[in-house]
């Protein structure tokens, strides 16, 4: 069984999504340089022979700016549902790339939005890979863990 993607590889996958869709490139940073407060989290299960969960979290300002870019509108025009929708779609696209990078032929599940820092308890810490990413003032936390939360 191949190892989970490294933090650097995860960062590349996510940045591939944001640069392709939004023209915004993220780079990995030490977790201590991350954002102050996780405001919204999306998790996406990939059930199957090797169940995985992909999670993406963001603070509110970052979520607002990314959503404005997704919807091509001013940040002031972004509402809560647009932010959830954008983060969900970024998670969905990233999960697709994570799955491909691991060579898994498993179907993606539906993304689920949670307020705050609700990282799923689906495996001990060694089976989780995570990375904090920044693009100027924007911050994201991406992780992949073995297992799917019940």
């Amino acid at each position, binding site marked *: 069984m191949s190892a989970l993607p490294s933090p650097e590889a995860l960062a590349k996958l996510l940045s591939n999504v944001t640069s392709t869709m939004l023209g915004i490139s993220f780079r990995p940073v030490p977790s201590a340089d991350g954002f102050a407060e996780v405001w919204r989290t999306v998790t996406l299960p990939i059930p199957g022979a090797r169940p995985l969960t992909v999670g993406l979290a963001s603070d509110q300002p970052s979520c607002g700016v990314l959503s404005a870019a*997704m919807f091509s509108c001013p940040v002031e025009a972004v509402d809560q549902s647009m932010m959830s929708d954008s983060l969900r779609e970024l998670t969905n*696209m990233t999960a*697709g790339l994570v799955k491909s990078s691991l060579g898994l032929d498993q179907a993606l599940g539906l993304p689920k939005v949670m307020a705050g820092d609700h990282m799923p308890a689906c495996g001990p810490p060694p089976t989780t890979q995570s990375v904090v990413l920044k693009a100027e003032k924007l911050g994201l936390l991406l992780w992949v863990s073995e297992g799917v939360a019940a």
Partner: protein
Amino acid sequence: MPRVMTVDDSRAVRSIITKQLAAMHCEVEEAEDGAQALTKLQGTSVDLILLDVTMPVMDGPTMLAQLRKSGSKTPVIMLTSESKSSVIGDAMRQGIDDYILKPFKAEELVDKVKKSLKLTDAPAAAAVSSGSAVPGSGQPVDVLLIDDVENVAKRLRTLLNPQVSMLGVASAQAALAACREHPFKVILVDYEFAEVANAQFVSQLKLLCPGAAIIAMPLKPETPAKLLAEVKAKGFSDCFYKPFSPESVEDFSATHFDRQDFLVRKDDLLTVSGFVNKPERFVRYFGRLEALFPPALEGVASDCFSDAFIDLSAIPPLGEIARVLAAVAMKAKALGVGVKLIGPPELRKVLNNFEETKAMALFSDLSKARSA
């Protein structure tokens, strides 16, 4: 006007698609899941359906099956993050025209939609490629210049190579309209023009032209580094200072429009293009090569080739190339990739002058290099 339905549970994706298709003069109908799409299709007909796979209520494959069962032959393009082979395979068997994996570039979407709708481009390609772009033609354009002073566009046009196509606009609204019409390689934004020199406008440009380099055009300041940081904080990738000079425009052109020609990689073969400029530009030519080799070698390594074949047949055998190749040798060694050079015999003399390059293998042609 072609009618297209986008079926996706993500409002953001529907919004992106709708904007891109509206720029192609398509009428767009939206549905957030398969069930809603089927209901809408009972009352209307469309020429193409862009269909997501994973959706709540009714997913894409289920909707596709029901659509085909009803006898509909409407072309369908799957647009999805789902790469599971059985899902794509089943969809193919049910008669999808094509599929696009997310994330996707606007150009890919536009190309596949055009192909599926059998749309052809307006006959303006020649005018676009030979200089000033024709607004509304839908053709890719090299440069969009946004400046409220008309003379700026005229001045740049006179200095740019005629092969570089360019469109000049004088307002934010006109710029956004142009971005909906054309994909641009570079967008130049007047930095003194408050309507466009802000992060929000840059975000909009990025969304409409995701592949474009968006560059600010300020007046050259006393402390460029400080200004560059400010400009980047607003989302610009770089600065291109006013007033333009022939040298600065040549630098700009070389950076954005010559890059692909300097070094072309095809699998394990890296072909270096010939030098076709003034002799005083040699340093820049070799400097650019030095910058392009590392990512090209990384590509060779990441595609699991054991050797990189570097074709230097077209370049002048000057000492500068040995410096470039010394860096290539170090990078290749770090990546675990072997290097075999192809070039004229006189290149050997140049290689022998430097410790780092004298051991490099040189062959007269590719077939000999491959068989060695």
